[in-house]
């Protein structure tokens, strides 16, 4: 019986060590993670970092639809991958920004109960989508009928997030402007449901490369839009 006990103790010790070091202690220490204030003198800007959390209601829709299967939300450092050099993947939307997009750290995901870092990257990374996002109507069009914008796209058409209804009177201000050849019934319009609006709010809130306090090079490189 003591052989059994030794065996169990050895299992506890061998698994317990990584369990403590990787899971339990970091989870406890995470509870102490908070926003950090910028220092006006060294950073040049005021406020807290990160300034604004993501839209949580929209994130619930993001989780429901399984967007993580194709989209990541994680910019990798330049020594590991090309993410930081891709056009439009950061705050600076210029064709060739002077500095690569900052790789993400834990505080960028503060306020999210679970960070949807992604499973595969079959579509663009979304961590800083809020900076390159077009107007709302176009985002809705991308969600409702992706192949009207990119005919090669494999993105599912989230038609259940929209209502097709008979247009009554003047066309609704939130109705999607779909191309003429899109097979929509005569007189019908497509309007977003509250879930779709929440999802778009969430996508617009995805801005994860605010400058890190105490990192002067990054702050200097960030354009004035950083204050938004």
């Amino acid at each position, binding site marked *: 019986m003591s052989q059994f006990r030794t065996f169990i103790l050895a299992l506890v010790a061998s698994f317990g060590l990584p369990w403590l070091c990787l899971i339990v202690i970091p989870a406890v220490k*995470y509870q102490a993670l908070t926003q950090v204030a910028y220092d006006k003198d060294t950073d040049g800007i005021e406020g807290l970092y990160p300034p604004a959390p993501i839209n949580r209601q929209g994130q619930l829709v993001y989780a429901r639809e399984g967007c993580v299967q194709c989209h990541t939300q994680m910019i990798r450092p330049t020594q590991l991958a090309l993410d930081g050099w891709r056009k439009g993947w950061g705050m600076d939307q210029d064709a060739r920004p002077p500095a690569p997009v900052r*790789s993400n750290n834990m505080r960028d995901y503060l306020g999210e109960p679970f960070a949807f870092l992604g499973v595969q990257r079959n579509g663009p990374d979304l961590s800083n989508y809020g900076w390159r996002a077009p107007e709302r109507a176009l985002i809705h069009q991308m969600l409702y009928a992706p192949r009207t914008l990119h005919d090669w796209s494999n993105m599912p058409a989230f038609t259940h997030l929209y209502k097709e209804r008979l247009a009554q009177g003047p066309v609704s201000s939130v109705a999607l402007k779909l191309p003429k050849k899109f097979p929509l019934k005569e007189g019908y319009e497509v309007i977003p449901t509250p879930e779709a609006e929440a999802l778009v709010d969430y996508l617009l809130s995805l801005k994860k490369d605010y400058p890190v306090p105490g990192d002067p090079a990054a702050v200097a490189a960030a354009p004035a839009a950083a204050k938004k």
Partner: protein
Amino acid sequence: MQTSPASTDTQADNLRRAAIDKSVKGPVLFLFLNGAFWLMASTILGVIAAITQFAPDFLGPCSVFQYGRIQPTHINALVYGWGVQAGLGAMLWIMARRSGQELRSGKSILYVAAIFWNIAVTIGLVAILLGKSTSMQWLEMPSFIWPVLLICFLAFAWPMVFMFGRAFRPEGFMVSTWYILAACFWFPWIFVTANVALHCLPGLGALGAGINAWYVHTVILLFFAPVALGAAYYFIPKITGQPIASSQLSQIGFWLLAVLGGWTGMQQYMGGPLPAWMPAVGAAASMLLLIPVGVVGLNHHLTTLGKHSMVASSPTLRFVFFGALFYPVSGAILALISNFSTGAVLQFTQASYGFQIVAVYGFFSMTIFGAIYYIVPRLTGCEWLSVSLIRNHFWFSVYGIGAIVVTSLVAGAQQGGDLNSPEMWDQDFMQLALNLRPYIIARAIAWALITWSNVWFLIHLMLMVAGLGRRSSSPTLLEHDHDEALSHAAHA
């Protein structure tokens, strides 16, 4: 081979084995049959998921059939509907036999646990399809499901722990029961940790994603791998008639897996928001895991030296041999996707899905198929009906899983190359999507092959469980014109 005094011992042995088989018959067959149904469902979902990835509108705009919902349903059905269930069936039988203990009481608890397991998995998967997915890898089922699964698992683990404690044959060292007991011990710990951390604690943000990745890897390495290895270490000596080559290698393989397995996982998010030491430790552990993987492979090889021809005749040995071969393969793929050089290229590509499937289907499932081909005739009292169905099952599974290994790795390399190609720095994802298409089509075909192999497996299994197998005292072998007669003890 057997003298008079020895034959009385053999007779008593046979009676004891029969009593043990009879005591676990109901729960084990129930688990195997339900598992086979879920396997069928999961492979069909795998075909659909692959098709929706290159032809998103092929089943219409219905929300249920979208890739983001179908893919997690496919994987969860494979892991929880088939994997854990069939694993529990094999574990229960092997532990009972190896420890020489009958299952004396609590059979009805096991039935109830198995029924509730299946109900919970059904509700969970339907919930994912209807839009309640949590989008946490392998934990997409809604948060009310996991406590039910945990209790059902513990209901099965408890008698197994008892059996281990009261083993009839205390002499010698039983590596197969070590692995099975360890799996009983690790899975609840891992399951509770991940679910409590992700569903019960106040949000953990990016650390939550790291814990999720840790969960996926530790379930593969500390549940699926030990169960498959326990089965392999049990069946290979049993059928070849040769003892395990080296008990030292067995122990080294076991303890290295135990020590290293818990550290892996977070390298899935290398370069990400986690503290840098976490992915680094995970990558290092994954590379070091090549040692226990190689040690076990060597041990199996030395054990079967000279008996490789038996793979041609014994269905069990053929499946177990092939499955055990996939342990080093999955270990090699893990090393490829985990280190920071090739892993950074293969990160966020098809390669990680390929690893999960190779580990759960190529390694674990093929080994468990071998176990099922051995166990079921002894429980139902009849033999497998058709050699060609068994051959069909084997070869189409081999083709399918082989295709998935190759296409995932090549697709991963292609995808990773495109994602990191300096020439694509200002391009949209059109070229990547077009380059990937042939590999997704290949993946759909591979799952279709595996579906085909499992349709016949399911039918064959249903016939056996219904008692409609061959009435015979000699086992169904894949080849009969073989000089090498399998010893009697091999099919006891």
